[in-house]
């Protein structure tokens, strides 16, 4: 009987592992094809063509800012240097306790303008003031001061006050490539039968890089192991994962730090959800759900290029808090939309995407944790054939190394950011140590997040105290 249980459990983990492996292999081929297709299409719609055209959609960048006094000026200047013929920048000061607003008013010579009759279709915290610059060189800038309400609420204020067709949701501390909007707008220009309801792109990590006046001057590999391994993780996730999903219109997540959406659709769905900590995932799911319910053909697309640079957590403490929050966000969105599971009303989203996310994204840390328990248990009971176990472990480890290497190879082959041998060796070595140094910490963080949700332990976003690129996140 015991042996039957042992074989049954082993079979379950084996099937789960093989299924996951199969998906990753599929992701690689889909991503490769998608990158290839994207590069071929780019030839026929260059950024110079878009920059030169008159009827391209107008874009507003909405950047919430909270307690970013030290870097807010250079961040805003960086965002203003974006090259696009019709763009506006709205910086939303989310009730900062520091001197962010005062610095902005002084530097950009801002004056208040009346906003009594501004229509605000999405309910938000109170807007205290709307400021525009007296200087003509900053005429694209609007600063909105509001009561603190969180990032999602600040973005909703920006959406309310924007007057353009498209909204780019970002963070004030992100460094956005100057041609980013020109590239992100491509899918909107080329849409024919399916409406584009969201467009994302790769986000890179710029810790320890050379930043001058808010512009990324020289990209360097982060010195610390924790940040370096996240570079590999991001490359894998964006280049392989998201590109693959985009290829089959299965993308359920556009990063909150960098996503372009049609304003009218954002308003139709009521903006971002202020009650969840995973508002980016939640928004994408809700947008898709909305379009499915309206029976309107749509797609969510992804540009396979790093267009936005950010700082990743550089200490394990902050990293755990971030991944804990992501896990809670995932939990919230999945369970808040549980009516979509295997619901044919939502077509591929209900029958394939949601189940996949539940079983392999949400379920993976749980399965892994159970697997560890089972290994220990079976070892104690003497069921394990150690020769086979070691070889299996070695094989799985090498497969993991192969996937990371494939992701780095694809990146190096197609993009110029990491072009020195030393950089590639640094990234590969970080990837090969990942299962031992990084993955267990991530597993712990995810399970911590689930534990909090299971036992209804209150936990929020956290406060950011900025010193420049490389700051610590404190739990609020």
């Amino acid at each position, binding site marked *: 009987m015991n042996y039957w249980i042992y074989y049954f459990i082993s079979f379950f983990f084996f099937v789960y592992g093989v299924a996951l492996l199969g998906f990753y292999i599929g992701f690689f081929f889909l991503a490769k094809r998608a990158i290839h297709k994207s590069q071929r299409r780019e030839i026929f719609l260059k950024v*110079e063509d878009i920059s*030169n055209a008159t009827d391209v959609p107008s874009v507003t960048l909405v950047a919430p800012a909270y307690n970013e006094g030290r870097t807010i000026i250079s961040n805003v200047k960086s965002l203003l240097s974006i*090259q696009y*013929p019709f763009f506006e920048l709205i910086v939303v000061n989310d009730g900062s306790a520091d001197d962010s607003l005062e610095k902005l008013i002084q530097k950009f010579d801002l004056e208040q303008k009346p906003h009594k009759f501004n229509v605000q279709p999405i309910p938000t915290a109170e807007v205290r003031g709307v400021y525009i610059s007296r200087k*003509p060189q900053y005429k694209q800038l609007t600063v909105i001061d509001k009561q603190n309400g969180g990032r999602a609420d600040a973005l909703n204020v920006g959406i309310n006050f924007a007057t353009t067709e498209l909204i780019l949701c970002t963070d004030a501390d992100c460094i956005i490539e100057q041609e980013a909007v020109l590239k992100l707008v491509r899918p909107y220009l080329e849409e024919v039968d399916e409406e584009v309801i969201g467009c994302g792109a790769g986000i890179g990590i710029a810790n320890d890089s050379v930043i*001058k006046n808010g512009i990324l001057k020289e990209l360097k590999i982060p010195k610390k192991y924790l940040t370096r391994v996240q570079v590999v993780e991001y490359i894998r996730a964006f280049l392989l994962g998201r590109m693959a999903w985009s290829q089959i219109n299965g993308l359920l997540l556009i990063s909150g730090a960098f996503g372009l959406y049609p304003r009218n659709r954002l308003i139709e769905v009521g903006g971002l959800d202020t009650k969840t900590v995973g508002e980016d995932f939640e928004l994408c799911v809700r947008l898709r759900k909305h379009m499915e319910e309206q029976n309107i053909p749509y797609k969510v697309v992804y540009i396979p290029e790093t267009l936005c640079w950010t700082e990743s957590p550089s200490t394990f403490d902050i990293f755990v808090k971030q991944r804990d929050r992501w896990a809670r966000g995932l939990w919230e969105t999945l369970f808040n939309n549980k009516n979509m599971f295997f619901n044919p009303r939502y077509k591929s989203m209900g029958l394939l995407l949601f189940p996949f996310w539940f079983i392999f994204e949400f379920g993976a840390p749980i399965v892994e944790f159970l697997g560890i328990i089972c290994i220990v248990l079976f070892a104690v009971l003497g069921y394990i054939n150690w020769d086979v176990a070691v070889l299996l472990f070695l094989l799985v480890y090498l497969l993991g190394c192969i996937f990371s290497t494939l992701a780095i190879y694809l990146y190096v082959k197609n993009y110029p950011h990491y072009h020195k041998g030393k950089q590639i060796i640094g990234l590969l070595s970080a990837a090969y140590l990942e299962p031992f140094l990084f993955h267990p910490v991530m597993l712990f963080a995810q399970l911590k997040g689930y534990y909090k949700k299971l036992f209804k332990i209150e936990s929020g976003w956290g406060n950011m105290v900025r010193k420049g690129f490389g700051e610590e996140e404190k739990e609020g």
Partner: protein
Amino acid sequence: MNGKSKKSLVLQEDLLLLFVLKKMLESIGYQCEAIDNIDLLNGEDKTHFDLVITDVLFKGHAPLEFISQIKDSLSFGKIYIVSDMELSKLRKSISNIQPIDGFYETPIDLDKFKNNLLEQ
């Protein structure tokens, strides 16, 4: 008009535009300095340029802020904007910062541009 002693400056990131504009100016008698990287512009250089032809799109610089910097750091007579970017929304703002003698968006008829310069 004899432009032999006149100094000009061309600022363009694109090499193709840079070389062609430089050649055009030299063909009408200007001494021409051509720069494709504005970080090389020496703010302490007090050379007076009779003519400046510049783009507004440069890596790491917001178009309007760039014009403001040009106004403060360069000494020049006339200034023309030659750009690949659509400028209809920015023209007024640019002119509010610094009066511009002419806006030329690609495709540019260089003969017409040359004749305009000769008439000045």
